[in-house]
Structures are given as structure tokens and as C-alpha cells.
């Protein structure tokens, strides 16, 4: 297993792990958003979907995959950010971006914002159904450990402060996803001009879909359209 350890220790290896786990988390956010679109088809659909996700085997398989991806993604990134800081102990008096973008240079800030979003989101809508029943929520409803997904979501996002939080958090998620999705294609070895153009289009479309979908759900709840 030595080779796995040396792979992880190299910067390219860590980057590849961050890219693969990033891809998994991107897939998770996409399916999560698509599932939540059921808020538009009504309480019955959404609560049935919520109950399906709460089958223990589905729930814990999903949680294991997401948690493992997040742990590897974050530990890998922390390692790389520290390596970068070590690589330039003395900074420049003047430094002017030549091709890098706002979103590429703010990955290490948008990442922690997304993490905070993730934790708050769990406290809003997940932990209320767990033993302890801690919920950052105006009126959390659940029966036998299965949350009433539709009521909980619509009630939470109908409050302007929470709706604002979710919209801002999703914009940060968008910054992170756009550079992340395009960058991971390069990290995983895509080098052809045609593939890279395709990766850029895919990254834009995926980011717009995920962020647009989430914000549409938030606005619909805030304006009480559902």
C-alpha cells in the first residue's frame, strides 16, 4: 500500500484526490437539487421522496459517500493550501493577476463558506429528525425520525433571513463549483482543446443549473408560490 501513501504525499496525487472527491460532491449537489425540485410538484411527492431517502440503507450509504468525499476533499485542500503558503514565504509588494480569475483565487475562501452552508443546512433540516432533535428551524416537523421534508423546507425558506442566507450561500457555491468543475477536468488529465472547451461549457451549465435551481426553490418558498 506504500504506493497509495506516496501518491497522496505528492502534490499531484493530492490534487487528483481533491478533484475526484470534488466531482463526487458536484454530483451530490446536482442530484440533491434535482430531488428538491419536487417542491414544485407538491407535498406528497416530496415527502414520499424524503421517506425513501430515509430508508436506513439508502441514508447511511449516502452519508458514508458524502462524508468520505468531504473529509478527503478538505484534508487534501488544507494540505495543498499549506504547501502553497510554504512555497512563497515572502510575498510580492506588487502582484497583478494575468489570467487567473476572482473565482479561481477565492477557492480557499468559497470552500469554507460552502462548508458553513453545509453544516447550517444540516442543522436546519436534518438534525431535527436525529436523536437530540436539534433544529435551527421555526417549527420542525417529523414523524418517527422521518422529517416532513416539504413543510420543513417551505416554512424555513419563507422566512426572509433564511432565504437571504440560502441565496448568498448558493452564490458562493456557484463561485466554488465553476472553477472547481473546470479545474478538475484539467487535474484529471483532460488536455485536448476540444475536450477543454466542452469541460468549460459543462462547468458553466452545471453551475448555472445547480445554483439556479436552488435559488429558484428558495425564491418560490419565500414568495409563497408553493
Amino acid at each position, binding site marked *: 500500500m506504500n504506493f497509495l501513501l506516496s501518491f497522496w*504525499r505528492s502534490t*499531484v496525487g493530492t490534487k487528483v484526490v481533491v478533484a475526484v472527491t470534488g466531482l463526487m460532491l458536484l454530483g451530490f449537489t446536482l442530484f440533491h437539487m434535482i430531488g428538491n425540485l419536487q417542491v414544485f410538484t407538491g407535498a406528497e411527492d416530496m415527502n414520499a421522496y424524503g421517506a425513501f431517502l430515509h430508508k436506513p440503507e439508502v441514508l447511511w450509504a449516502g452519508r458514508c459517500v458524502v462524508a468520505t468525499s468531504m473529509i478527503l476533499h478538505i484534508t487534501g485542500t488544507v494540505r495543498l493550501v499549506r504547501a502553497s503558503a510554504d512555497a512563497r514565504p515572502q510575498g*510580492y509588494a*506588487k502582484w497583478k493577476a*494575468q489570467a487567473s480569475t476572482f473565482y479561481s483565487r477565492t477557492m480557499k475562501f468559497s470552500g469554507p463558506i460552502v462548508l458553513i452552508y453545509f453544516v447550517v443546512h444540516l442543522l436546519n433540516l436534518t438534525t431535527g429528525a436525529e436523536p437530540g432533535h436539534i433544529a435551527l428551524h421555526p417549527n420542525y416537523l417529523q414523524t418517527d425520525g422521518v422529517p416532513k421534508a416539504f413543510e420543513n423546507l417551505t416554512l424555513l425558506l419563507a422566512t426572509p433571513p433564511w432565504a437571504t442566507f440560502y441565496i448568498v450561500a448558493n452564490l458562493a457555491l456557484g463561485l466554488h463549483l465553476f472553477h472547481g468543475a*473546470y479545474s478538475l477536468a484539467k487535474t*484529471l488529465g483532460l488536455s485536448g482543446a476540444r475536450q477543454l472547451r466542452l469541460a468549460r461549457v459543462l462547468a458553466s451549465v452545471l453551475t448555472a443549473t445547480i445554483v439556479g435551481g436552488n435559488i429558484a426553490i428558495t425564491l418560490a418558498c419565500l414568495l409563497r408560490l408553493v
Partner: protein
Amino acid sequence: MRMKLNVWRQNGRDAKGAFQKYDCPDVSEHMSFLEMLDVLNERIESEGQDPIAFEHDCREGICGSCGFMINGAAHGPQPRTTVCQLHMRSFKDGDELWLEPWRAKAFPVVRDLVVDRTAFDRIVQAGGYISTNTGSAPEANAAPIRKDSADKSFDAAACIGCGACVAMCPNASASLFTAAKLAHLNLLPQGQPERLIRSEKMVVQMDVEGFGHCTNHSDCEAVCPKGISVTNIAMMNLGYVQATLLSSPREGSTDD
């Protein structure tokens, strides 16, 4: 033209450096940037001071010796141009310029604007070669090479090792340099027998030297005087994954 310069002066590797102001009232727009510094140095020397140290050799943009930061851009504001080929007409009369050495832990400052880039030599020594018996040159057309491979290899081989990529990278990463040296050999038939071990060893050496990692900002490509493409970095990543995860252990592998 009149130029106001703020030049990083540092007496030696461990000395503390600082910016020093110089006023250059008689700059011709036809001078190269280094010629302006030559004239300034004559004046500094005539005043009994130590001249500003900067590296230079061919002054034709092909040796890779020169290079420093001008107002936060490696090699200054002109794309695909080394400092020696940068002319004062690229600036405006009265401009204030900040001259700083490349900053990276792996490139310690030797003096003023000169840094030690032997870390690059050690990356090349780790695998940037092919092992072949010497003797008379083989028949040039004996090994067919695809035109696009030859072109890409030649583009990568244009790297002059100036270090601008490291200097400009927000992470002080040497990925563009290492990837160019890898692509140069890995795309040609002569480079195939050692392709995997080379891909592994050069990446490992890049880490050992203390360079940062690549986050695909592409600032390196933008300042590279030879326009080396960041797509070489993607090829390096793929080569490293093939070498370390997807192939059987080889003699000389770093994880033995």
C-alpha cells in the same frame, strides 16, 4: 523619458532586503529594459555604490537567464517577451516601476534581482533525459513521428527555464516548467521507454524542491515568454497517475 524605479536591493541570501528608489531622467524609448539598468548601474558605480545585480546573457530572449517582476508581472507587461527583449517604449514617460526578484522558497535570492534556480536543474536531472548509447546519429526518418506530436513536443521544448511561471503562480508552483520538460520527451518515440519513471520522478523532485501545487489559474501561461500551454500540466497529471497508480512497480521507483 523619465522613469522612477523602486528596485529590490538585497546584499545576499540571508540579508534583509528593501526597495530603493532610483530616478532615471534620460531613458531612451529604444533602450531595452536591461540597457536602462546598465546605464543606471554605470551611474551607481560612478557614485561608488554597488550596482544592481540582475542576470542576463544572450539578451535575445532565448537563454532564459534574465527575468524579474516589473509591477507585479513576470518579465513585465509585454506578453511572450523576456525582460531583455522588453523595450522602454512599452512604458509611458514618468511611469513608476517596481522591480522585484522571483519570489519562491525554491528560488532563494542570491543578490538584488538574481535568484538561484538550480532547483530547476535538479528537476531535469531527475528524469528530463533519455538514456541512449552515443555514437553516430541514427537515420532521421527511421522513427516515424506524428506531425501533431512533433509540434506539441517542439512547443514544450521551447521552454527556456527562466522561472517566470513559478514567479507568477499564486502558489509558486513549478508545474508548467516540469510539465513542459516532460511533454518535450514524453511525446516523442525516443522518450517512450522511460516515460513512466520520468513522469514519476520529475513530479516527486518538483515537490522535494518545495514548489507549490497547481490550481489551474493559468497565470503561468500568460507570462511565459515562450507561450508554453497549461495543457502540458494536464498531460503531466495523467502521466503521474499512470506511473504511480496504473502500472506495475518499476526499478528506481520512488515508492520502493
